[in-house]
């Protein structure tokens, strides 16, 4: 017998066949007995014993995540989530919903909350009917995170990871002042606009009982809005792209014109034509009015409908003319072929983009037909990075920026209980704060905190490090403040200190970076915010965050 059976040109497994088999829930349930926290000795019990152990393990694992949300008290949340500046908190939006129909709440930020009908129950598990109130607040950047007092560290079995956030929100519900709860089996979708197209951000829920973040869902990027955004982008590109070439007219022998040596980089729409002249559209205007005087400067600016304003200035005197770009007949014929070529090339390129995106959409729609669940299929592609990979071929970086700026990109969390959720990615402390904090090779440095001539160490409650280009905050606890674990300088931008009596101090940017972190003792000469800074907005502006 031959060693191998030769198979030729066999079709690969289809996505549908693979998706059908890929079930992490089933996999992990089957795998639960192999746990690192139960000893092999216990596992050797075997049979019924093993099942008991597995059941206990399951109970342990789900104790925090599966906690009855109705038992979560506000007090526990307060103890864990401690805004450092109680007078500067981010107020929630409150919306009162009447009735019980499907509801979408649209917030000014672009966030949306989708509430299916009959989603809520009271503490006795009885259905809640409207009017009820939804409280919703968003924490978008480091400053919001600072004021929120929400911990941005993720503790995994004693190892701490720093969260980088793509947005965070808190949602709660009340009826007649009493807390309400999301009914079992119901899900509320929360969409938050995002400026980051990166798909590394997962969804985490803040478990205030376990006092830790709990992993909820892989990848939060909302492909539904992403596709809509691509469509809109394509539309814009297709039209504005073509229109951006200005077609010169043939020069009118009865109208005066000017030759101006304009900057072709500034007017790319005219750059392809040689011998452009600017023709006065007003028959009464004569070139001599501009030419016969000695002017100090001449400028050209773009107006509507392919017109250009030509302005001559000398001191305080100026004279301006509305013109259109023209070419003499001979020049026009010579360059028109070139123009057509460029136009056709551009049209073809745009058509290719259009076709590619249509194909891309078709692919997902096909998935929809086959899987009967397009959202699931697209979400899967997004989570595997395939969607972005496909997108890379069709959409350039500028377009992506346009998408993110326009708020078209959103992240979605499907929530089954009220609380605080974060679209987060983990960053390793050792690499992220490598130059700031090296816990492993920490050397004892005594840090002194001064405000003026006064030392304020004993008054400090909390301290935070902020790096402008990293959407997360690093909280130092008070012990670390006196034993500041810094080794070789800092890549952080701001150090913020809050005292027990809620006074706010800071040292930032150049002054912070100028500190010699290799010195044996470090003195932080802190500043206070001006008395006029009383609101979150003013403080944000003051810190330039």
């Amino acid at each position, binding site marked *: *017998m*031959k*060693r*191998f*059976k*030769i*198979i*030729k*040109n*066999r079709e*690969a*497994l289809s*996505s549908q*066949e*693979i998706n059908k*088999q*890929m079930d*992490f829930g089933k*996999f*992990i349930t*089957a*795998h*639960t007995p*192999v*746990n*690192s926290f139960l000893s092999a000795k216990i596992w050797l019990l075997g049979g019924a014993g093993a099942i008991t152990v597995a059941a206990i393990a399951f109970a342990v*694992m789900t104790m925090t995540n599966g906690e009855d949300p109705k038992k979560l008290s506000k007090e526990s949340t307060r103890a864990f989530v401690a805004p450092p500046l109680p007078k500067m908190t981010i107020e929630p939006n409150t919306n009162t919903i009447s009735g019980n129909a499907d509801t979408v709440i649209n917030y000014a930020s672009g966030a949306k909350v989708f509430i299916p009908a009959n989603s809520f129950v009271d503490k006795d598990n009885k259905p809640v009917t409207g009017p009820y109130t939804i409280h919703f607040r968003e924490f978008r950047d480091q400053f919001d995170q600072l004021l929120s007092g929400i911990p941005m560290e993720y503790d*995994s*079995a004693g*190892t701490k*990871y720093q969260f980088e956030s793509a947005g965070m929100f808190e949602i709660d519900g009340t009826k007649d002042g009493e807390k309400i709860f999301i009914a079992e089996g119901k899900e509320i979708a929360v969409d938050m606009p995002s400026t980051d*197209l*990166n*798909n*590394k*951000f*997962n969804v985490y829920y803040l478990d205030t009982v376990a006092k830790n973040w709990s*992993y909820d869902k*892989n*990848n939060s990027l909302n492909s539904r809005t992403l596709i809509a955004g691509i469509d809109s982008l394509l539309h814009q590109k297709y039209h504005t792209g073509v229109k951006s070439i200005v077609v010169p007219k043939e020069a009118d022998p009865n109208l005066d014109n000017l030759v101006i040596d304009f900057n072709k980089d500034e007017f790319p729409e005219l750059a392809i034509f040689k011998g452009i002249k600017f023709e006065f559209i007003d028959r009464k205007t004569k070139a001599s009015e501009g030419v016969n005087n000695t002017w100090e400067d001449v400028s050209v600016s773009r107006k509507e409908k392919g017109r250009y304003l030509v302005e001559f200035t000398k001191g305080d005197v100026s004279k301006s003319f509305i013109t259109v770009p023209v070419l003499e007949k001979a020049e026009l014929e010579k360059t028109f072929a070139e123009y057509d070529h460029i136009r056709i090339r551009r049209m073809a390129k745009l058509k290719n983009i259009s076709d590619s995106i249509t194909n891309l959409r078709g692919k997902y729609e096909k998935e929809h037909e086959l899987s009967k669940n397009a959202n699931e299929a697209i979400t*899967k592609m997004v*989570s*595997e*990075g*395939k969607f*972005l*990979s496909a*997108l*890379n071929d069709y959409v*350039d*970086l500028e377009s*992506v920026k346009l998408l993110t700026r326009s708020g078209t990109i959103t992240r979605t969390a499907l929530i089954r209980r009220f609380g605080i959720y974060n679209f987060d*990615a*983990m*960053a*390793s402390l050792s*690499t992220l704060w490598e130059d700031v904090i090296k816990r492993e090779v920490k050397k004892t440095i005594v840090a002194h905190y001064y405000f003026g001539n006064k030392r304020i160490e004993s008054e400090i409650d909390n301290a935070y490090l902020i790096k402008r280009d990293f959407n997360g905050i690093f909280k130092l606890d008070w012990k670390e403040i006196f034993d500041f674990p810094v080794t070789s300088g800092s890549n952080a931008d701001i150090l913020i200190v809050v005292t027990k009596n809620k006074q706010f101090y800071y040292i930032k940017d150049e002054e912070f970076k100028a500190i010699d972190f290799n010195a044996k003792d470090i003195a932080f000469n802190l500043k206070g915010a001006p008395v006029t800074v009383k609101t979150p907005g003013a403080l944000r502006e003051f810190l330039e965050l």
Partner: protein
Amino acid sequence: MLLTTGIIETGYFHIERTDIKAEEVEISLAQKDPKAFEPLYLRYFERISHYVYHRVESKEIAFDLTANTFYNALSKLSSYKSKGLPFSAWLYRIAFNEVQQHYRGTKTQGVLNTNNKGVSEIMDSLPENSYPINDEQLFEAIEQLKEQEIELINMRFFENRSFKEIADILTIGESACKMKLYRILEKIKNSFTDK
């Protein structure tokens, strides 16, 4: 233009160092909590399924062995130590062992999953002065190779993997990988010239 993504998705396998770092964080979490294995499972399930199916006869066996691969991976995860290689390289090695065990256990004939493109690429890569050969002669020559050698031919020509990826999976250097392949092709050539 390539967007930066946290998901390792550049090409079929290629992975940036920064992504390896990000993945190390995920692995470290999964070592402490099996539930945190989910992103890794979702990311690599498809690739491992393809890899296994390429080496076995039926889809049922492929999915069974894929499930075993992930089961074993999670079971052994506590002992996993990153060597700066992509996590998938480790998974492929487990999958390879699963396939080998399957054939040893069932004592059945192995599978060489070929395609026209791969065959013509091998033909083109054979050192000069080879005798003209047909597909069947080539398969016979491949059959005489050692298991690891066939695996290298398989990955390079029938799965179209890069040298870097193959090197990572086999935990050898990229240049050693190229050298090995060159020698295998020499061996194939010699099998014709010796006849």
